């Protein structure tokens, strides 16, 4: 399988505090990679490097290299709008805009300059189906997206991210604000979509990682400790500390 994203020696500092101490790792196309580690270890920070969401934070300094399809995303030539269309993001809290479901999904499409109503309609339906929420909202497309349940809102957000046809979707603890049933529905959705998209998902939930990810990376204190296939990581981790964490001995 081809590598779609590759990071080399990524350091990131918030002011004087270095949150990432040189992260190098490759992500394969159409795989789901889970980023694990105790909270505060830099998982979200690293995830936000991949679509350059850290750019907007004051006093952030990033060195090293991240390539998306062999293009350096931090090069001055890179168009941020293009990058974020290719690399979408879903946040921990469901964040639909207080607009209708339809306008939420169409938001990214309109930003991308798509004006053809029929095309937008089609993409809205397609992405809501992909996110497994079409059945529940198809009669309420004009209803405020925030009037749905948390799990439904999160799937609307996934649909919103998918609508612009990204190649990679970053997910930052997408189920940690949800109840177990909604969580497992989202897990199933991601499993079904794995063949069309590349997912990079931060999670606190070890079971979730073991259930749905192909690759697992273990972070601690701003370092990538170990990275491998999920079965290797959970069955025969190379490092004691990885094994301790994955067996729930700390966290």
């Amino acid at each position: 399988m081809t590598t779609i994203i590759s990071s080399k020696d990524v350091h990131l500092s918030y002011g004087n505090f270095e949150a990432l101490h040189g992260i190098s790792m490759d992500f394969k196309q159409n795989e789901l990679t889970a980023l694990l580690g105790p909270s505060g270890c830099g998982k979200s920070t690293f995830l936000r490097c991949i679509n350059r969401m850290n750019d907007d934070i004051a006093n952030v300094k990033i060195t090293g290299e991240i390539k998306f399809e062999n293009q350096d995303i931090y090069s001055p030539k890179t168009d941020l709008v293009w990058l974020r269309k290719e690399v979408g993001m879903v946040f921990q809290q469901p964040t639909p805009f207080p607009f209708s479901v339809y306008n939420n999904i169409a938001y990214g499409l309109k930003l991308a300059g798509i004006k053809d109503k029929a095309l937008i309609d089609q993409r809205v339906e397609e992405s809501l189906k992909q996110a497994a929420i079409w059945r529940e909202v198809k009669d309420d497309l004009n209803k405020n997206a925030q009037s749905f349940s948390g799990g439904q809102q999160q799937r609307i957000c996934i649909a919103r991210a998918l609508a612009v046809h990204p190649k990679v979707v970053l997910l930052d603890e997408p189920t940690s604000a949800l109840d177990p049933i909604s969580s497992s529905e989202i897990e199933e959705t991601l499993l079904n979509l794995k063949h069309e998209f590349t997912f990079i998902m931060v999670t606190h939930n070890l079971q979730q990682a073991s259930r749905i990810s192909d690759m697992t990376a273990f972070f601690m204190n701003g370092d990538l400790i170990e990275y491998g296939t999920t079965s290797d990581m959970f069955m025969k981790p190379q490092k004691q500390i990885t094994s301790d964490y994955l067996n729930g001995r700390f966290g």
Partner: protein
Amino acid sequence: MDNKEDLKKVVDQALAEQKVPHVKLKKIGAQKADVDKLTQPSKETRQEYWGKGLTYSAILLIIILVASIIGFIAVHGLATFTQNHVNVWHFLSSTDWDPGEGKNHVGALAMIVTSFAVTLLAAIVATPFAISVALFMTEYSSKKGSRFLQSVIELLVGIPSVVYGFLGLSIIVPFIRSVFGGTGFGILSATLVLFVMVLPTITSLTVDALKAVPNHYRQASAALGATHWQTIYKVVLRVATPRILTAVIFGMARAFGEALAVQMVIGNAVLMPYNLVSPAATLTSQLTSQMGNTVMGTLPNNALWSLALLLLIMALFFNFLVRLIGRKGQK
């Protein structure tokens, strides 16, 4: 009785360790805990009664005060129609204002139109500026810059209206006179003075409105590839619209009710305004300029109270609008 014994034990224990902070140990004797005392209202409970009593009586007083103000204005304002037999419709639709001449010369339309004209014009001019300044403060400027602007705005709010009127009289009126001819007094001068006066009101409320837009909307929008400006006009402004409208209405309420500054620059001639640079009068400016010239209980005096009643009704109407928008915004 067993219960009481248990309670006594616990209390004694606590007293020994002095863990019960509100029990004055000296008064009741540290060793002999008086369980009966604990079951009576404590000092704190009595304070609570006192506090509640004070608050409620203050509220009651305020309610009586407000009710009598409204009652007083209503009684006098309605006397024009009940005692002096002025036709309400005539009052609202005639432009003939000369109450000294009798009940057929009490028409407030010219002042109503002028009041609305200066209010709307000031709001229309001020709102784009207010939104721009507020956007700059919340979305673009550094923290330091926005704190500086915040204090400038607070200063502008704090300047008394007579100073604004004086400035208008000394700068704006002569300027209008030299550009458009005439006296320089009129709706245009009043609009410009009110523009400066409502700008800080609308701006600071709009800043609050923009700050209330959750940051995760901005992040979600950016993550979908929106530029900062696209995020602002497609998400931030849209989400903040109800509260921005509220800000504008507060500004309009201030403009509608402003008397002194307007009186100083508008010319105070009760005429239907046929252009923006001829002398006119608003409801408020007529009140301030005439209230010293009438005798309580006469028609000219009652007619002024009717203007006051109109102002009161408009104030209620503005409040009602704000509430209406607030309720719609919540949905």
